[in-house]
């Protein structure tokens, strides 16, 4: 079972400040533990929203909104992808993460393509396969 753990932004992450050596150490140790347990599949950190943008879709109109965006805690600053045996196991792992200060970290199961069921019609499946072939050809 695969999970995405979404780490929210903070005023510091939005200001582009690097975490303290202390926090980096704790996080490295935690990541090591995840790796040594065979749990961690992927992880990335995101630049502050000032380097990002939003596109708003209204009818045929497309409006580009440049960052930064307000409400740091509603922004994602990074994510992990984990492989766990159960939701409970993912929660147990998350409880061990070195966060503090009232931050809330969200954990969500990842869809398997099979989960899309009937919504993903054979035509859509075939279209996806074609896309993959093209993408593979570009490598």
């Amino acid at each position: 079972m695969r999970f995405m753990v979404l780490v929210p932004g903070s005023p510091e992450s939005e200001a582009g400040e690097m975490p303290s050596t202390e926090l980096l150490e704790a996080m490295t140790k935690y990541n090591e533990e995840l790796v040594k347990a065979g749990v961690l599949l992927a992880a990335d950190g995101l630049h502050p929203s000032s380097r990002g943008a939003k596109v708003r879709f209204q009818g045929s109109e497309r409006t580009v909104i440049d960052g930064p965006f307000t409400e740091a805690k509603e922004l994602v600053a990074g994510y992990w992808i984990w492989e766990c045996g159960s939701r409970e196991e993912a929660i147990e792992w998350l409880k061990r993460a070195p966060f503090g200060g009232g931050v809330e970290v969200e954990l969500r199961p990842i869809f398997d393509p099979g989960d899309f069921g009937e919504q993903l019609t054979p035509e859509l499946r075939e279209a996806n396969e074609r896309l993959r072939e093209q993408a593979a050809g570009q490598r």
Partner: protein
Amino acid sequence: MAASATHHVIDAVWRIESARLIAGLTRIVGDVSAAEDLAQDALVAALEQWPQSGVPQNPGAWLMTIAKRRGIDALRRRVRLERKQQLIGSELQILARLDQSDLAAHVDDVPDDVLGLIFMTCHPVLPQPARVALTLRLLGGLSTPEIARAFLVSEGTIAQRIVRAKRTLTEAHVPFAMPGRDELSGRLAAVLEVIYLVFNEGYAATAGEHWIRPTLCEDALRLGRILAALMTREPEVHGLLALMELQASRLRARIGPRGQPVLLADQDRGRWDHLLVRRGLAGLRRAEQLSRTLGPYTLQAEIAACHARAPSVQATDWPRIVALYDGLAALTGSPVVELNRAVAVAMAYGPQAGLELVDSLATEPALGRYYLLPSVRGDLLTRLGRQAEARSEFSRAAELCDNDRERELLLARATYPDLASAEHEPKHRPPA
């Protein structure tokens, strides 16, 4: 929290902690059987107490504390029961180690402990099935019924296998330690073999009604990832993990809606798991950076990577796969590898070339009852338009095959050889 919810949490904690707990305890008491008993005692205590008290902040340390306390109690009880004046020297040492209050230190040096435990459960003094059962039980955190279900044998058989294995380890005084430099490669090969065996039983079940059992693949992947994190400099550890991740990337495309096998040529490649493909290719690069000469798992991962990179069967680099099989055959001398090589040759240079190689393997004793030999032969004969001969080959393959789902496919092809294509075969479409 409701009691049943707490039990789910305890299951999760056990899965996370049990290997480290048992490994740490084995180092302290020197005996894997006693260590597992203590760990089980701690689990029972958790099941009794946590539903009322709640799950402790540091469940791993809690379990370790309880297990050690039980160990101390057991040793003291023996003094009373056996009316000994005092414990013998070795027991005193164990007591002293159990009594150390420095818990954090024990939790910290666990990675080496886990490695020591893997080399113990895969020790050559044990027969192969015992290594598999003990590894899944002590490192994978699987229960006896789970292992029994995975290998389609009775719980009693597995329970007995595990008890005997632990007794053998104790009687043979197998030390809890990393193997020395001189024996490392042989001992590591035994560990990799156990992990790949578990994976394969999930990837293509040898028997039973299901063709794939993804949870077994996940167990093997987890063991492979743990090992890769602990033995970062060993190329074949990364090679095996890459091989398993590349193969597992195809798992969900590998069965149809009714549980029937879907072979490589017929798979919807859009359903392959691209995260696993990416990880597998990265792991393969790491393995190749670590060693100039490629070991058998890294070579197999290279072959799997050829498939992973190809957008279709037709666009697969078959000559390269043939060359990789040449290397693998030279390394292993395995007739099964030769058979796979014949399939690749047929794809690269035509079915007649493949058939000649397959026929040269017909007298190979190791393949005498191997269902894939007639299956491959039937497939090549079909492509050569020799349908009558193909039918009898597929019938023979079905007779030899123990997996229900795969046998159904083979029986169908015994009637209609063109029906489905075999592994590595291009898709046959009925004329419009």
